[in-house]
């Protein structure tokens, strides 16, 4: 202790102690003595974190078919080994040049396209690419007021410059896509047009293996200013291509890449100069999640009445029908009366549907003799319940019959105008007749069923009626 007091009494030692204390306090108060500070709250937000697809065509895929098989084992840069990252509607490059749209995903290694594969696009190991083109929005807070300087954003790229800028997804970084552009919707400072340079290009050689995007601004700059810069656009028209799965990637995990943001003073050479401020961040890409939903199979059948005066089956209807009745009312002799109904069928059953018709008997009145209005045999006495024929003349061709006409979405129908036939009769042990059908899934297929009735003078007065049953079932 005595020794310490003696040292402190030495004037030079005391001066040295005070000087050291001042330096320490000063360094604590003015930390800007360091050469580069960190930009803060930095992030690169991708419009979509979806990775690209780089796979290969596998046999038995053939040209002229829409069915595509892919390899489930990786090879060199072809690291996409499952359809998990694809979805219907995606545009793929298959074979290197032609583009195809995915129609459906069959399973892990099969999908279909909307158009058939061209010759040369279906050979074993032909390439399959999906280019994910998200816009990058880079946001951060400035650390220093650097007047009239520029920011440089560095996005990781493949180590071979030609590979990193050939418009094909890479597995070690983002592809420059030959026409990528720094965005123009930059905010925070007053910016001039951005400059985009592919990795290895002029002014973009250091650090290596990064694409460079420069954003020059005017003004004094500021501390803590929120800056937002973009690479590409939301339309994907001038964007860099997101990487395909890396060679070491584990399925369903993201591949992370390091990006950098630098703030340089005016006229600096970013390849050699030290940035005033900078920051390093991470951006990750992963396969898209394909959302699936189950739609229950069903069949829907509707019958609607049609007003009198409507046009249906090349006729003008004379009576108003409902869903449950066709009331012909009072008939004039040797004159047609026409009526119609609208049938609508929808089904998502893959084998389609059929609508059949059958009547319980002819239009009958047990109190009259003869007790029925006959089913029509048409003009030439040739039609019956499953054979149609023309029926244009009411006189001498009394009877009840019907025809069909397509209204919407092209169902298969029978009979078709101008041919008519009569309904099969349960009383005569006839089988129901197929009036409307479709061999596959059907959406709101519509047809008119048009009825015609004519009576002659031999028909006793009275009320005649029957019952027609329409049955809609799915095919199997």
């Amino acid at each position, binding site marked *: 202790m005595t020794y310490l007091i003696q040292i402190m009494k030495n004037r030079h030692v005391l001066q040295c102690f005070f000087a050291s204390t001042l330096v320490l306090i000063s360094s604590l108060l003015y930390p800007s003595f360091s050469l580069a500070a960190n930009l803060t709250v930095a992030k690169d937000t991708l419009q979509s974190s979806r990775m690209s697809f780089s796979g290969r065509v596998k046999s038995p895929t053939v040209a002229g*078919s829409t069915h595509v098989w892919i390899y489930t084992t990786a090879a060199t840069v072809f690291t996409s080994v499952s359809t998990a990252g694809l979805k219907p509607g995606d545009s793929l490059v298959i074979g290197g040049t032609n583009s195809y749209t995915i129609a459906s995903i069959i399973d892990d290694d099969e999908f279909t396209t909307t158009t058939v594969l061209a010759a040369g696009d279906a050979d074993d190991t032909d390439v399959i690419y999906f280019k994910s083109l998200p816009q990058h929005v880079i946001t951060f807070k400035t650390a220093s007021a650097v007047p009239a300087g520029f920011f440089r954003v560095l996005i990781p790229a493949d180590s071979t410059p030609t590979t990193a800028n050939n418009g094909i997804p890479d597995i070690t970084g983002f592809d420059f896509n030959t026409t990528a552009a720094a965005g123009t919707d930059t905010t925070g400072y007053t910016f001039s047009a951005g400059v985009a340079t592919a990795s290895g290009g002029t002014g973009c050689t250091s650090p290596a293996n990064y694409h460079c995007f420069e954003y020059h601004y005017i003004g004094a700059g500021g501390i803590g200013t929120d800056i937002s810069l973009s690479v590409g656009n939301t339309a994907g028209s001038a964007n860099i291509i997101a990487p395909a799965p890396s060679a070491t990637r584990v399925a369903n995990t993201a591949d992370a890449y390091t990006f950098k943001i630098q703030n340089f003073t005016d006229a600096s050479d970013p390849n050699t100069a030290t940035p005033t401020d900078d920051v390093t961040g991470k951006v990750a890409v992963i396969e898209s999640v394909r959302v699936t939903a189950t739609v229950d*199979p069903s069949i829907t059948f*509707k019958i609607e009445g049609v007003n009198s005066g409507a046009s249906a089956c090349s006729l003008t209807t004379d009576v108003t029908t409902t869903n449950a009745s066709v009331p012909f009312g009072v008939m004039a002799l040797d004159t047609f009366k026409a009526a119609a109904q609208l049938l609508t069928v929808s089904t998502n059953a893959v084998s389609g549907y059929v609508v059949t018709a059958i009547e319980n008997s002819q*239009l009958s009145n047990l109190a009259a003799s003869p007790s029925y209005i006959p089913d029509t045999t048409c003009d030439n006495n040739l039609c019956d319940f499953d054979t149609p024929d023309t029926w244009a003349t009411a006189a001498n061709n009394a009877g*009840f019959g019907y025809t069909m006409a397509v209204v919407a979405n092209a169902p298969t129908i029978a009979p078709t105008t101008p041919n008519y036939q009569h309904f099969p009769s349960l009383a005569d042990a006839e089988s129901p007749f197929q009036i409307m059908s479709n061999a596959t899934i059907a959406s709101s297929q519509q047809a008119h069923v048009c009825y015609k009735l004519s009576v002659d003078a031999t028909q006793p007065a009275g009320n005649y009626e029957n019952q027609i049953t329409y*049955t809609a079932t799915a095919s199997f």
Partner: protein
Amino acid sequence: MTKKIFITILCLVAFAILLPKHISAANYGMSISPPLLRVHIKPGKSITQVYKIENLSNNDKTLVAAIVPFTESDNFGNPVLNPKATAPWLSYFSLANSEIKFNKPFSIPAGSSEQLILSLSVPETAPLKDIYVTLIVSTYENSIDQTFQGSALRATIGSNLLITISSQAYPDTILRIEGFYPSKGTVIKIGNLYFADSITPLKFTATVSNEGSFAAETKGVFRVVSGKNKPVYLEGILPTNIIAKSRRQLLNTNGNNFEFSPSLGNIGPHQLSLEIKTDNSNTTSTINIIFFPLKLSLGLLVSLLIIISIVKITSKTPGKST
């Protein structure tokens, strides 16, 4: 100005009155789900299936549910239904609903749905075979208008049940592809060999018959292979069910006939095959076609004849003038 407005209003009123329109106040609209049920069941077992019936009409509907057996279908998988048909095994079916029973009317309010809980109990002693039924739900009317003249309508919607009663998971199926041939296109047949133009699309029809006692499904492909055994075209077959002892049209996955559009490169012998694979059997039918440039050759021949004619005519003309 007033005159223009008056004429416009008059036109609108006239259109509204004169344009024909459908009645929507009282319509019929029903939906049933699922529309098809395929069941493999062992004797002594039971299953329950819930059917959802929706009344899509804008008025309440009184309906009646029934089970109708069928044994036949047409070439497109549509059952030939006879409402009067009956079968001893119909007793296997019942409705587990407390309020709704077969052949008894029940109501569904407008825009609502009802569940039919169908129970199938196969006795231990049931014969091992397929049974086919349609669950039908029909409109029901018990009032008669004595003055009505015309047709009363009954609307029915049905769901098919294809049931295989078997002690095996996949009982034997016997399928045979028949009538596989080109139905449209420029084709000449000599013996068993077809000759076709190499730039004209060809359409093919085929049917498959199920000669076994159990229903089977048509899963498979239509394949075209070149003479070098290289596949040049592949198309899926629409998966459909073929009930026992029936025949079925084979279609592509779009519901159309199979079609192959050869290119100029498809010259020479090709083998076209239809291959169906079921759970326990395969069946294949093949035809051999030799593609050659018929139309192109004819075109060249005609061109050649025209050129020769022109040359002959032009070579004779100077002679005449001298």
